C-alpha cells in the first residue's frame, strides 16, 4: 500500500517538476526568473563572462570538466580542514574533538563525491559547524554539480548548446557556473526548504541549542567491567537536524545527522516522515528523466530510459520486500513467525524498510531506515545488485550519466550486429569514444573486486563483525557502496577506526565519482563536434522497445556477470546454508563459522 502510494506520488510530482527543470535549464522563462538578479550577482562575483547577446560564455568539455574538478578540489580541501580542526572552531556547544587526518580525509572525500559514506557517528563526532558548513554545504553543492554535468552531456548529444539563433554551437557544452547556480537556487534549495519544514512538523529537531538531558522514568543499574553504576539520565542530542535531513534526501546524498541515519526516531519520527523522505529520495532522480526527454526534445528516448529504470526499480523493490517478509532464521522456534525485524523499527515494519532499501541503493542516496547488515541474505543481495547497476533512476544527474555509457556501448554492439555504422542521434561513435566508455566500464569491477579481495586476503585489515559468508558480503558491500557513491553500509564492518578502509575508501570514492563523470562528458564533447548524418530508415533507432531490451540485456550481462561469483560466495551461499539448516540445530554449533571475529562492535559505524 505504502509502496504504491510512494511510486504514485513521485510520478505525479516528478512529471511537472521535470518539465520545469528542462525549461529553466534551457533558459526559457519560468516563474523562478524572479531569482535572476540574485543569480547575476553570483555570476559577477564568480567572474562569469557574457557574450554580446547576453548569454554566458560557453565551455568546451575540457573547460567544463576543469571547472567541476578544481572547484570541487577547493571545496573538499576546506571541508577537510573544518573536520580536522572542528574542536577549536566555533559552533561546538557539545565540545566535540578534532577528527584524525584519515577520518577527515575519508569524510571530505565522501561528501565531495556525493557519497556520504560515514565512518563516524554524527551526533557525537561532528560539531554543529561541521554538520552545517562541512556536511550540509556539500550536500547542496554536489547534487547540483552532478545534475549540471548531465545537462552538459545532453547538450553535447544535441551538437552543443544552442545559440540565440537556435543553432547548436559545436563544442559548447554550456557554462558550469550558471548551471550549478540555477540548479541550486531554482531547484535544490527551495524543495529542500519545504521538505525540512515538513520534517520539523513531524518531529525532526531544528534548533541551535545543545543536547537535552532527560531524567529517566526508571533509573537503571548497569554493570560495566564488574562495576555497577546507576544511569538516571538520558542525553538527547538535537541540533539543526531538519535542514540537513531534507537536503540529504533531495540531493541523493544520504549522510544523516545521527549514526543510524533515518532509522533514528529523531531523524525520521513517524510513518509520514518516512513517506516524505522516501518520496524525496527518488523525486529529483525521476524528475530528471522527464526533464531529459523534454530537454533533448526526444520524448520517446526519455520514455525508453524511464521504462528501463522503472522495470528494474519495480523488480528489485518486489524482491527486497519478499526477502524481508521472511522470518529471520535466528528466531526460528524462539518467537512468532513474521517479517525480519532485527535492525528495523516497529513504526516502519519490514515492507517500508525494504522499499526504502531498494530506492536508496538504486539512486546512490544511501540513507537507511533500517540496518542493511541485519537484512536477510537475499535482501542484502538485492541491495548490492541495485548498487552494481547504480542507475535505477540513479544519483541526481549521474544516474543517466552511468546509463549513458551503456547506451554508447549498446549502440556500438547493436550497430555491429546489424552491420550499420554505430550512431547516436546521427553522430558516429568511433574508436576514441569506445575507448573512453570501456575504461569507465572496466573501472568498476577492477576497483570493487580488487579492493574487496585485498581486504579479505589480509585478515588484519578485514574487520568484519559477522562470521562466514556474511563477513565476505560486508566487505563487498563496503567497496560496492563506495564505488556507487551510495553510502549505505553493512555497518557491522569495522571501518570507522581502520586507517585502511578510510584511506583506500577515499581513493576509491574519488576515482569512482570523477572518472565516470569526466569520461561521458568527454564523449559528449567529442560527439558534439561531429557532422550529423540525417536520420533515414536505415538508422538504428535508440527509442524503440527493441533497443530498450538490448540495452537492458547489455547492462545486466556486463555488470552483474562481473559480480555474480562474489554474490554467490556471499549472500547466495548464506541464504542456501540458512535454508537447509534444520530449525532445531543450534546455530552456534554450525561448522562453517570458523572465521575469527574481530573483538569490538563499532558503534559509530551504524550510518554509513
Amino acid at each position, binding site marked *: 500500500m505504502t509502496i504504491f502510494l510512494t511510486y504514485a506520488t513521485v510520478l505525479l510530482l516528478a512529471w511537472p517538476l521535470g518539465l520545469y527543470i528542462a525549461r529553466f535549464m534551457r533558459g526559457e522563462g519560468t516563474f523562478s526568473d524572479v531569482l535572476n538578479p540574485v543569480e547575476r550577482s553570483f555570476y559577477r562575483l564568480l567572474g562569469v563572462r557574457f557574450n554580446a547577446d547576453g548569454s554566458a560564455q560557453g565551455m568546451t568539455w575540457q573547460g567544463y570538466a576543469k571547472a567541476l574538478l*578544481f572547484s570541487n578540489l577547493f571545496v573538499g580541501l576546506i571541508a577537510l580542514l573544518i573536520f580536522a580542526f572542528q574542536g577549536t572552531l566555533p559552533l561546538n556547544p557539545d565540545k566535540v574533538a578534532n577528527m584524525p587526518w584519515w577520518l577527515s580525509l575519508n569524510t571530505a572525500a565522501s561528501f565531495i563525491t556525493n557519497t556520504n559514506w560515514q565512518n563516524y557517528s554524527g551526533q557525537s563526532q561532528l560539531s554543529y559547524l561541521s554538520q552545517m558548513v562541512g556536511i550540509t554545504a556539500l550536500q547542496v553543492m554536489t547534487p547540483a554539480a552532478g545534475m549540471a554535468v548531465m545537462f552538459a552531456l545532453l547538450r553535447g548529444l544535441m551538437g552543443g548548446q544552442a545559440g540565440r539563433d537556435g543553432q547548436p554551437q559545436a563544442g559548447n557544452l554550456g557554462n558550469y557556473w550558471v548551471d550549478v547556480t540555477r540548479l541550486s537556487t531554482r531547484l535544490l534549495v527551495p524543495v529542500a526548504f519545504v521538505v525540512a519544514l515538513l520534517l520539523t512538523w513531524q518531529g525532526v529537531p531544528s534548533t541551535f541549542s545543545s543536547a*537535552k538531558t532527560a531524567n529517566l522514568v526508571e533509573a537503571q543499574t548497569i554493570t560495566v567491567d564488574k562495576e555497577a553504576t546507576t544511569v538516571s539520565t538520558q542525553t538527547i542530542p538535537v541540533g539543526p537536524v531538519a535542514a540537513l535531513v531534507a537536503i540529504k534526501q533531495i540531493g541523493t546524498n544520504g549522510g544523516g545527522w545521527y549514526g543510524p541515519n533515518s532509522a533514528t526516531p529523531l531523524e525520521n519520527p513517524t*510513518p509520514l516522515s518516512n513517506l516524505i523522505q522516501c518520496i524525496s529520495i527518488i523525486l529529483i532522480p525521476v524528475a530528471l528523466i522527464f526533464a531529459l526527454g523534454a530537454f533533448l526534445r526526444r520524448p520517446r528516448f526519455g520514455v525508453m530510459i524511464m521504462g528501463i529504470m522503472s522495470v528494474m526499480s519495480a523488480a528489485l523493490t518486489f524482491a527486497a520486500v519478499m526477502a524481508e517478509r521472511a522470518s529471520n532464521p535466528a528466531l526460528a522456534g524462539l518467537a512468532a513467525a513474521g517479517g525480519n525485524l532485527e535492525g528495523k523499527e516497529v513504526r516502519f515494519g519490514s515492507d517500508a524498510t525494504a522499499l526504502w532499501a531498494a530506492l536508496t541503493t538504486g539512486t546512490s542516496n544511501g540513507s537507511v531506515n533500517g540496518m542493511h547488515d541485519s537484512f536477510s541474505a537475499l535482501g542484502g543481495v538485492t541491495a548490492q545488485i541495485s548498487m552494481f547497476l547504480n542507475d535505477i533512476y540513479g544519483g541526481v544527474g549521474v544516474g543517466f550519466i552511468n546509463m549513458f555509457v551503456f547506451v554508447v556501448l549498446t549502440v556500438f554492439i547493436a550497430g555491429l550486429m546489424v552491420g550499420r555504422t554505430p550512431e547516436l542521434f546521427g553522430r558516429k561513435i568511433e574508436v576514441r569514444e569506445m575507448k573512453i566508455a570501456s575504461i569507465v566500464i572496466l573501472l568498476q569491477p577492477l576497483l570493487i573486486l580488487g579492493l574487496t579481495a585485498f581486504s579479505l586476503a589480509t585478515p588484519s585489515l578485514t574487520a568484519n563483525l559477522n562470521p562466514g559468508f556474511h563477513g565476505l558480503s560486508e566487505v563487498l558491500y563496503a567497496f560496492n557502496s563506495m564505488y556507487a557513491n551510495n553510502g549505505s553500509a553493512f555497518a557491522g564492518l569495522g571501518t570507522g577506526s581502520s586507517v585502511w578502509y578510510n584511506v583506500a575508501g577515499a581513493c576509491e570514492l574519488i576515482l569512482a565519482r570523477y572518472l565516470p563523470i569526466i569520461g561521458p562528458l568527454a564523449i559528449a564533447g567529442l560527439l558534439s563536434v561531429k557532422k550529423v548524418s540525417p536520420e533515414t530508415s536505415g538508422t538504428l533507432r535508440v527509442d524503440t522497445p527493441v533497443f530498450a531490451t538490448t540495452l537492458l540485456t547489455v547492462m545486466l550481462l556486463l555488470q552483474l556477470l562481473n559480480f555474480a561469483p562474489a554474490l554467490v560466495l556471499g549472500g547466495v551461499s548464506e541464504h542456501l546454508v540458512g535454508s537447509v539448516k534444520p530449525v532445531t540445530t543450534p546455530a552456534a554449533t554450525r561448522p562453517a563459522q570458523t572465521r575469527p571475529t574481530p573483538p569490538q562492535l563499532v558503534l559509530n559505524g551504524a550510518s554509513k
Partner: protein
Amino acid sequence: MTTSNESTPTPAFDSSGGSVRTWLTFTALTFALGGLLYPTVTTLIGGALFPAQANGSLIVQNGKVVGSALIGQTFSAERYFIGRPSAAGSGYDPRAASGSNLAGSNPALRKRVQADSAAIAGREGVQAPQIPADLVTASGSGLDPHISPQGAAIQVERVAKARNLSAEQVRSAVSAATESGLGQPRVNVLELNLALDAAKP
C-alpha cells in the same frame, strides 16, 4: 537577424574552467549559502513554527524533562511495560545510537534471541511462539520507542498484577497509547508507562 550560422567559425569557448580566483569564490559561496544561509534560515523558521518538535519532542512533568516522545527508555521493573532489546550503548543511549548489525546467520544473534526469548517466556508466562518478533529483535537505532500491540498484549497480565489493576484497565491504557493509520500499528512504551504512573503509581 544574424546571418546564417552554417559557415561561421566556432566562437571562442572557455577551455580553462576559470581561474584560482573563480574556484576560491565558488568555494566561499558554497559554504556561505549552502552551509550557513540555508541551514540557518531553515532552522530558525522551523523552530519558530514548530517549537515543541524542533526541540526534540520533550515530555515535561512537574517542570522536569522525563524523556522524549520519540525515544525509548530502558524499563525493567514489574510494573512497567518493557520495550525492545537495544544495541545503543548500555541501552537506549541516543549518543551511542546503533543497531546490532548482526546477520541472521550469525550465531551471536541466535544466542541473544535465545536468552531474550527465554527471559520473556518466563517473565510473562507465555510460550515462545506467542512472543512477537519485535520483542526479541534490536531496532535499527537502538532507540525505538514502540512495540507491537501483540508485544504489549502479552505484558498486560504482569503489569496489572504489579499495579493492583484489573487487566481490563491496563488493556484500555494500552489501546489509548496505540497509534495506527499510516505505518504499522504500534504502542509507545514510554507514554504508556507514564500514563499508568499518572493513573496509579
